[in-house]
């Protein structure tokens, strides 16, 4: 459990209030949360830091969510990404899944559900790392 809760989460959303609230919620639960507010900063953050799970809003100014996802995944393939959107476009979701996103959910997502998804994603990441570490 302590392992799970030490996950480092990157929050990517142009809604500052959303990220700051979510960061508070996560840190209360033992996560280490960092917030960025556009695609470029997200890519930079992924380059510089080490994260386990990213929460990615698909609708952002500048480079959009899908493009951000693509770049992040290129840099850190093992980083698990949970896509969030206020828009119910299946196509974007499908595309994101293709690019290797862990899951896709619609805003406003229930906090409990989101926490579960983050936990699952982190589990998966740990599993992948284990597999890569001991082939």
């Amino acid at each position: 459990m302590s392992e799970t809760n030490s996950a480092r989460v990157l929050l990517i959303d142009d809604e500052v209030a959303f990220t700051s609230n979510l960061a508070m919620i996560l840190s209360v639960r033992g996560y280490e949360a960092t917030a960025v507010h556009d695609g470029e900063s997200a890519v930079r953050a992924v380059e510089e830091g080490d994260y386990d799970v990213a929460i990615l809003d698909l609708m952002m100014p500048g480079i959009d969510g899908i493009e951000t996802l693509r770049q992040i995944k290129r840099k850190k393939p093992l980083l698990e990404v949970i896509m969030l959107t206020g828009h119910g476009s299946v196509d974007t979701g499908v595309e994101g899944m293709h690019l290797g996103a862990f899951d896709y959910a619609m805003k406003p997502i229930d906090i409990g559900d989101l926490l579960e998804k983050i936990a699952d994603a982190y589990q998966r990441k740990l599993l992948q790392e284990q597999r890569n570490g001991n082939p």
Partner: protein
Amino acid sequence: MEPQPESIERPAEASGPAGGRNYSRLYLRFILLTLICAIVPLSLLGWAAFDHYSDFSYDQMADYFQRRAEANRRIVELFLKERTAEISLVGYGHSLEDLKNRDKLEYIFRLMDQEGSYFTDLGVIDDRGKHMAYIGPYDLMANDYSVTFWFKELMKRGPEVYVSDMFMGYRKTPHFIMAILRREGDLKWILRATIQNEFLSSLVENIKIGDTGEVFLLNYLGVFQTNPRTGGKLMTNSDLPIERFTEESGILAWQPEGGGGQDRPPKQFIAYAWLKEPHWMLVVKQDYAEAFMEVNKANQSAFLLFNLSLLVMLTVSGVIAGYMIRIIQKRDKEADSLSEQLIHTSKMASVGELAAGVAHEINNPLAIILTANQVIRDLAQLTATLDQVFKERLLQLLSQIDSMVQRCNHITHNLLRFARRTKAPTQLVDLNESLKEVMDLTEKRAKTNGVEFSAAFRPDLPKVLASPAELQQVFVNLINNAIAAHGGKANGSIRINTRLAEKPERIEIEVADSGVGIAADQIGRVFDPFFTTKPVGKGTGLGLSISYSIMKQLGGDIKVQSEVGKGSTFTLLFPLTSTNHEKNNISGRDDV
């Protein structure tokens, strides 16, 4: 957003009741146009024919009249010639001695009489105008003829026979004389014979031409030499315009003087021919109207025919125009309903976009509210110093906020669902299932058309990401066409197969019918919009073209094979790209 209602309003108006268009004016214009096209040449032709025919028939009639006059003149001339020949034979064949002898004269008179009793009497008159001998019914021996016009005329003349005009003379009946002046040495005497008016009259008066036609003789002064049927009496002046009778023979139309309006005497058509001797003319006369009755009748029937043709044209152009208007109306209606559909679709699309936009804009703040709520809840939990009652109340209110956010969430999701429906939402479709549904829907129709379905589905086909409604439309189109292809042909069958092809990897759906097939020259056009083999009004010709565009949008294709008389096979090809089938797991989540 402002121009939106405008752009919707205008076509809606046009697509309203078809009466909104002025079809009756179009109808009238059609009729007018066809009538002008038909009447102008007809009238020209009619006028030309009428004009030509009128001239022609006038010439014919004139010629006929003139020849009639000339023929009658010949008869009169012949009669007179025979009589003058007799007189000159007697006059030159006998001496005064013989003729003075009453018995001898009587004998000669009898001989002449044998030819026909044309002569009333025969007399020999000396140069003082006294009868030397006379055979005849009248007592004329004492008369002095030296004062008569004919005696004076004869005395001036040469040896030829003199023929007088009609006159009354001593005997007070109309007659004319033939006489010759004879000279024997110093002796001058006259042989004179009388011909009663009746003989001459009988030659012309009995000739009847129609109801108003007549033939009569006039002398050069225009005095009747025979009794005309109308316009005068024997030996009276006729009112004919003899100053116009200048030719040897001719014709003219003449409007008699007198009367006015209704009483005006009818116009006359006259042919005349001058005799050589005496100076008479033969006249053939008829009411102009009667003479040209036949011509007029022909003209009348031509006129009737013309009017009849007009009537026929009017009817025909009316019928044709009506037919065309109906076609146009139908086309308009079809176009209207098509544009109505388009308008509806685009309207729904824009409403859908609006809804999606609103939902998205609201979803973001809702998400923030949810997180903020959670932060407060966390803070409340973590703050140990909080009053217990206050904390409970706070948590209660926080969950109320949560549930209200969920309520909003429902609304936005419904909005999004609606928005997605307006643009044919795609989802993973089990093609077998979808086909089965359509077959159930159409089976009854097929049965009533004597067509049986048979199906061979490959089980466990990968699902395809598509709009179920659109796929249904494609299937319904193909199956309906297949049923229609049998055209009531008994024992028809429609085979529907699904299969999974390997290379390239794709799903194939085959709809094969045993119908009439498609001709080779038409097979290339079956997917063209508005191409249809169905009777006018039965098919829009859009079914297959819509199916085609739906399949193309899916990245698929639609193919057709056909043999006339054996049937057609339509094949739908669904490509199996990873997009379509791999990630079935997302389908549930996005709809929430």
